[in-house]
């Protein structure tokens, strides 16, 4: 029947989607908070954030795209050490999006990022949205000699590999919000349809954490 109203117009309550995001590469849980993108992203939530033990940090951050669309990221920030590289699949296997971080002042870090991207493209979900973030832009802004990887090179690589690309500064928050907003915009909000994105009163938040069990599978899914 006709008269269902303008197509694609969400209901008054808008859309609320939750996605799992994994941070990889020379990110992440650095001893200095300034180097951590995710902490920068969620920083003003915290007065003080202490990192005492190695592991994967789990944080949430919500991005409001417009008055009707809200994207909640469940962020897993994996430890950057080589030692724990083998555990990364736990976190990226069910992730909807990934941020691969490299350090624009270190020439080798882009190669590491590339290997992460390669691994993600091979092992992670085929629809995963990957963003490449060249961090420590603040250092280069202050002293251009410190730059080891040119923007053009990284951008060309990102384009070729189909990645979102930003040069960021966790220290000054430059481009950090833009990075996450760009990811949110690229997520398949419409694919799921507004109806699916709406909260069902009988259900709680989606668990997007690694290894969410199959128990909550098709049998009792209300969507």
């Amino acid at each position: 029947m006709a008269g269902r109203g303008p197509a694609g117009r969400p209901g008054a309550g808008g859309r609320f989607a939750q996605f799992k995001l994994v941070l990889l590469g020379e990110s992440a849980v650095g001893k200095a908070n300034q180097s951590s993108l995710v902490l920068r992203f969620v920083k003003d939530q915290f007065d003080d954030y202490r990192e005492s033990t190695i592991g994967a940090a789990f944080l949430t951050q919500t991005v409001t795209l417009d008055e009707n669309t809200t994207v909640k990221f469940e962020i897993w920030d994996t430890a950057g050490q080589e030692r724990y590289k083998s555990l990364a699949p736990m976190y990226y296997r069910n992730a909807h999006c990934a941020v691969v971080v490299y350090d624009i002042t270190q020439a080798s870090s882009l190669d590491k990022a590339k290997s992460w991207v390669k691994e993600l493209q091979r092992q992670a979900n085929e629809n995963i949205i990957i963003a490449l973030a060249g961090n420590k832009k603040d250092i280069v802004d202050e002293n251009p000699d410190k730059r080891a990887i040119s923007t053009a090179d990284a951008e060309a690589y990102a384009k070729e590999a189909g990645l979102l690309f930003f040069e960021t500064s966790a220290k000054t928050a430059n481009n950090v919000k833009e990075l996450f907003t760009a990811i949110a915009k690229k997520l398949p909000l419409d694919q799921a349809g507004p109806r699916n994105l709406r909260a069902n009163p009988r259900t709680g938040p989606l668990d997007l954490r690694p290894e969410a069990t199959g128990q909550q599978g098709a049998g009792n899914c209300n969507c």
Partner: protein
Amino acid sequence: MSLKPTDTDRRRWSSRDPWSPGVHPPGAYPPSPNGDRPQHSNLRSVNEVLKSRRDEYVRKKTIKIKVGTWNVAAFDKCYKDLGAWFAEGLGVKGLTQDLAGLRASTNGESDDDLYDSEIESVEEQEARYTKKDTTVPLHDSPAVPSGKEVDLYVLGLQEVIDVSSVTEAMKPYTDPNPGKKWKRALKKHLPAGYKKVVEHQLIGLLLVVFASPELAPQISSVDSTSVGTGLMGYLGNKGAVSARVLLGESTRMLFVNCHLAAGADSTALARRIWDTQQIVSRTKFEPVGDEWVGSTGRPEIIGDEDFAFWFGDLNYRLDDIPGEDVRRLLLLHARNEYDVLNASKRKIDSELGYQPQLPSDHRPDNHYDGEGIERAATQSKAAPDLDPTNDPASLQTTLKSLFTHDQLRAQQKARKAFHEGWREGDINFLPTYKYDVGSVAMFDSSEKKRSPSWCDRILYRSRRDYEQYQQRLQMEAESARRDEEMQRKGLGDASSHDDVLFDYDPDADGDSYDDDAEFQDDNRDAELVRTKSGSEDTIALEEYVSHQRVLSSDHKPLSAVFTLTYDSVDQELKAKVMRQVTKEFDKVENESRPTVTLVLDHHPFAASVTDRSADTPELKLVDFGDIRYHVQYERHLTIANTGQIEVLFAFVSGPSDNGDKLSPIPAWLDVQIHHDMNTGKAGPPDLGPIKRYRLLPGETTDIALLVEITQPGMVKHLNSGDMVLDNILVLRISNGRDYFIPVKGKWLQTCFYRSIDELVRIPSGVRSLTLHKEDAEAQRQPSKNILHSAPQELFVLTDKIPQMVERVVADWDMLHNQDEPPWNFGTTWPFLVMSDTTESSSRTEQLADIREALDTASSIDDHLSPTTDPLNQLVLLAETLVHFLQSLTDGIITNNVWKEIESRLQIHEKSKQPLSHETSQDIVMEAMSTTPIHSVSLTFITFMLNRLANEICANSAQQDRSVDPVGRSRSSTSASAMSDVSLSSIKSGGSTKTKRSLLSSLTGRSSNLDTTATSTSSTIDGAHSTSASKARLAHKYAEFFAPLVIRADQDHKTKEKASKAQLARKVRVLEVFLNQEM
């Protein structure tokens, strides 16, 4: 309890496509087993907070809504007029505007302005009707708000298809083409950018709603539906199409366009009431799909809205008044609007039976004032000062008097239809039906001369109207109940009078007398309405007019203009508030995550290692240090809940490369947590079926990490370097972070679970293989050259055990005097199948020490605890030997050698020839000749056993005498002599060289097994007795050692009988080497 893998522990870890069907679509909400987590943001919780901060982003906004209704009676031409009257507000003005209900002079315009001289006269308009063109007058100007002045256009049309045709009515579908035509016609006349919000058609009923570009984004939750009440009660030739829209997320609007049953008789009236009830009960909308206004999940119905507009051809007629009289009366009024020469007037005159008037009668005021049979009903212009409503001759007075016959109003008063708070504007226009097509005011001049009626109506109702209606009903029910109660009690007039006094409510009283006011909207002030979602909106009816000069249908179109003030959502402000709300949620959520502190308990080997890289924080590493075979190690972690909320934790599996299920804990490690498990089913999904533990704030618990490597396969892999003791445990805090706990240990090579071939290539103790760390890979591989004639470990044990036996036996009398020695129990002592020594930590340690001596090729004596009784030391050594033999991966007589031996034995068995010991020995030695290392190893064993047998038997004979000195005295001398011989023989054989030389001597030597038959007799002399008991012991040794020494593949299909025969063969083969005199 242990975290070793079990089937239930194992969890599927496989790559799942989060977008694939069967998995939740991103952002969807699967059922949460832990529903009470209010601090978590989701659509509902965010919306609840947003709602509470509504004031920050809503702004009052006033809009104009125009509702139009028109029964086009299937006249094809009507669509050409649609835009003109509805969108442009034309067709009202001119001479006829009084007839159309346009309120005169309210806007302060002069009469000249109102009577626009440019406007086409009715006469001309009617005259050109035949032209297939729009019928609205030329040079007209809008009489009501139009174009961009109106924000929301709501149009209800009836009979866009000929619904009187049964074929059309019976059609199972609605022909959408007429709808498109009308929609296009309207769109063409609407200002640019107006957007269609609703379109719904049911046969002849069409409802379309257009919104201005500014308003459209404020509209949501649009739903529309239809109810057929026509033929057979459900077909769509009659019925309603309805739409519900949400304005600014809070104001619910309902639009009902209906066409009720036609006819003037009482049956038709009853049917209209039924139709209305059907529409009310059967109209259902999808619930507004969000938590914003607390959706209950049930469909929305008529009555849930804040503002309702019910319009269409309601088909109500005039009761109790002859139709012809009405016609005449109204024609008289219409006629007065025209000048004498007007063709339209002449038409009306002729209809009324008047004679045409001459132009000379023309009066300057342009009003007819003739001398006809009937006096003109009104002369509005002649008496300009008289308020038309008070002028008994005015059109308004006439209309008002006629209106008292209106069926709808009567039904409302009788509470049979549209009494539930529905209101209507003042009707100051002529009845909308039925006109001659092409005429302005000519009521049905056909044969039927149908009575003019206000069939077409626009009703409206606010939430407040509906609630007041409901309150009134309640009040009435209450008072009725009281009346009844009082009557039942038989109370007198006096008390009843009191009640009346107390209950008197001037407002309510007034209501009941002023029935008309209940439905008639004579108060045009804006009315304040509190909507369902709590906003305060106001509505006011501005205009209610008929478009008298639209000539293309036998119905005149109606339009009503409302002014609505509602809470409009400022999108930017809302987004800003939303950002603040979600940020606050994130903060609360992240700060309220469960937090634990992990402490690695101090241990000399477990000192935390700091990563060399300066960029990484300190690692917590559980280092077990050196890990030896069969030794238990233990480390402890303390986990403390240092947060504010309960913690659930569990160890979870890491990723696997091939999708196999992995255990969270590696096989070499055992994790024990002595703490209450969380047994509740409703565990967090991220921990799944894995065992999880609950810690309340302030609680701590101990996590014991245990290592004891005994499993043969694991030892082999560790020895070969295929496996390393280095894993990362992942400790997951439910709804919190993951902790990585690296656990490692350094495997110390052991001689156990190796092959003889391997052992003879190892220079000096297996431990030497890992001494050079940097070259570990090369060193781990045994040398290519054979360095020993037999495993050193075997030599050490088979050399040491007889020495110990000698010592123990020699010491026994001295130390134990009268006690029965352990070797007299008829067992294979010191090799014990069942250890009779209780398990104690000291025993475990001593065994480990002995193994350590073997692995490091150091002196056994140094590793034997000096405080331990030599007897026990001996048992420990014997146990180690047995264990060593068991652990040999190839065995001393390997499977292949045994096959050969066995096949040759079987040949002899078949030939039924008795097999001499020499032949048996020859068979074995020949088979083993290809593997000299194994051959030497065998000799070590048999030599040792022979020594033991000799020693023990000699001693037993001695013991026999000492225990029973009378009966056994004769044997003592020879027994002790034998013992001496044995001892000296053994002592001389304490080197490898000696043992090797023995090999040849053994093979050639004859034995005297035939003497065993009489060995039990106590009367036999000592030598014979010793020999017999030695043979018995040898047999026992053979039985005990045969399975240890000889490896034979056990075929599962081998029958029990064959298996027994094989065992017998093994024992016999070994036995032929044992009964040796030394």
